[in-house]
């Protein structure tokens, strides 16, 4: 391996046999790699991709849908925390994604992204849902409340938020937005829950720090003092 410098991907393979192979007729057949440089290979891939992709546009005869039946319009009105906004939403977009990355309301967290942890909980017409597992287009005409919409417009905290602070509910805090929304939804529909009712209502929200009892004390405190 004398005389070889550091590996340079733009240089072609060195000449000569690398591995010898015995052919069926008994002759030794020198094996050589295909003499294609990385650069030329990439060029070939890019060009053939353009040809294949372009031809499907140019020569396709199948139309995907009838003219009078069309998929959803991407532009839609979304009502979040009392404000209605026009948003450009892809058909396969989830509400959690839209809220965080199109509206910039990053209070809502996406934890598991598969309806199992509750960090993304928001209220839709007063009922809690997992925003990570709801298509945004499903939310037309529905009033969404995220954790940003819980406190009063002047910044006064909701009793649940105050109680969570006083009872040291959050530890790492990642599940807290979901816990707050779920607790507020519970107290909106049932202002004086028993602890058993509260545990059922909060059962869709995981807390990896295990601060469930703190949150539970916070909810009972908010219910008493709310």
């Amino acid at each position, binding site marked *: 391996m004398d005389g070889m410098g550091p590996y340079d991907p733009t240089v072609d393979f060195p000449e000569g046999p690398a591995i010898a192979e015995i052919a069926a007729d008994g002759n030794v057949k020198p094996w050589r790699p295909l003499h294609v440089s990385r650069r030329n290979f990439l060029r070939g891939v890019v060009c053939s991709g353009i040809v294949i992709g372009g031809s499907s546009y140019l020569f396709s005869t199948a139309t995907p849908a009838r003219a009078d039946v069309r998929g959803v319009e991407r532009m839609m009105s979304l009502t979040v925390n009392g404000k209605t906004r026009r948003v450009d939403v892809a*058909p396969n977009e989830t509400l959690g994604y839209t809220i965080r990355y199109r509206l910039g309301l990053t209070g809502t967290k996406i934890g598991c992204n598969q309806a199992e942890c509750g960090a993304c909980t928001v209220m839709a017409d007063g009922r809690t849902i997992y925003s990570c597992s709801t298509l945004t287009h499903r939310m037309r005409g529905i009033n969404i409340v995220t954790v940003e919409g819980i406190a009063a417009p002047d910044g006064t905290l909701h009793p649940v938020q105050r109680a969570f602070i006083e009872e040291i509910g959050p530890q790492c805090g990642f599940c807290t937005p979901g816990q707050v929304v779920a607790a507020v939804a519970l107290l909106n529909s049932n202002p004086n829950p028993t602890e058993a009712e509260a545990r059922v209502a909060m059962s869709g929200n995981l807390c990896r720090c295990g601060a469930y009892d703190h949150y539970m004390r916070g909810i009972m405190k908010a219910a008493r003092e709310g």
Partner: protein
Amino acid sequence: MSDVMHNFELYQPNSLQGAADLLDEFDDAWIIAGAKDSLGWFKDRVKQPAVVVDLGGIPELAGIEPTDDGGVYIGAATTLTDVSESTLVKERFQILSVAASNVASPQIRNSGTIGGNISQDTRCVYYRDGFPCYRAGGNTCYANTPTAMNREHALFEVSRCVAVTPSDTAPAMVALGAIMIIRRDGEEMEVPASEYFIGPEIDITRMTVLEPGDILLGIRIPGEWANARHYFEKIADRNTWDFALVSVTMVAKVAGGAIGDVAMVCGGVQCTPRRLTEVEDVIRGEVPGPEMENLVRRVASRGAKPLNFNHFKVPLMENLAARAVRSLA
């Protein structure tokens, strides 16, 4: 691991006719309503349908109404929360309210639908992970091998596939003798719950009689079991989210201390909800007591063929059946 969903064309018809036209046009359209089961498939990139039809916005598919025979009609796209909190359902079929309130978590019940819950696909981990098994159109079962993790799989009626029904409300539908109303080719047809759920023997790629293009319109529960005594118990690894390892659902009429007519159904032990007809035969007309419980334990799991890791389901099932009977004493 979940991923960003593939690109699909989403259609949101607001009438039944519009939905039917779409399903006629696109043979491979995937129907969603609550989309709780479907988005999991899409995010795992195991199923990637090009066209998705959302039936959640069709008004006539949601709602709960009383029927003349003392039963109820439930639209297929009614959410599980609406079913479990409905005063009408609670008055007449408490068992269905209890079963619906045991599904998954509050947030899932708030958007998941009753039609979706009973028609959902199985949770076999191999199938869900995209293994090319029998159910996925392949020619192997990955769950029924010497080393496979199959503690959640079937005890009965195995035919190549060992997956089980995951639904909590499907056994209640079978116990209550519900009628599924399906729209196929522009016509409505009625299928009793006992025939709605199908095992691998009939079609290994489906859990229900629904074919592509069919729409489940609603569920009619006849008044026969209104106000009957009932028992529901679901055993799962976690109280929330999780699917039943074994669940038992029973409705019974008790007169003068003796059990009259009774229907007992087990979930999580077979591809379809399993009606425990042998238990029903043993206890019908008898007075519940410790002796009967022992008898029930003996017959409840008769014929079970456990796999490597699900032997625990046999005593679990026997005990659940015995506890259901005990509740009638």
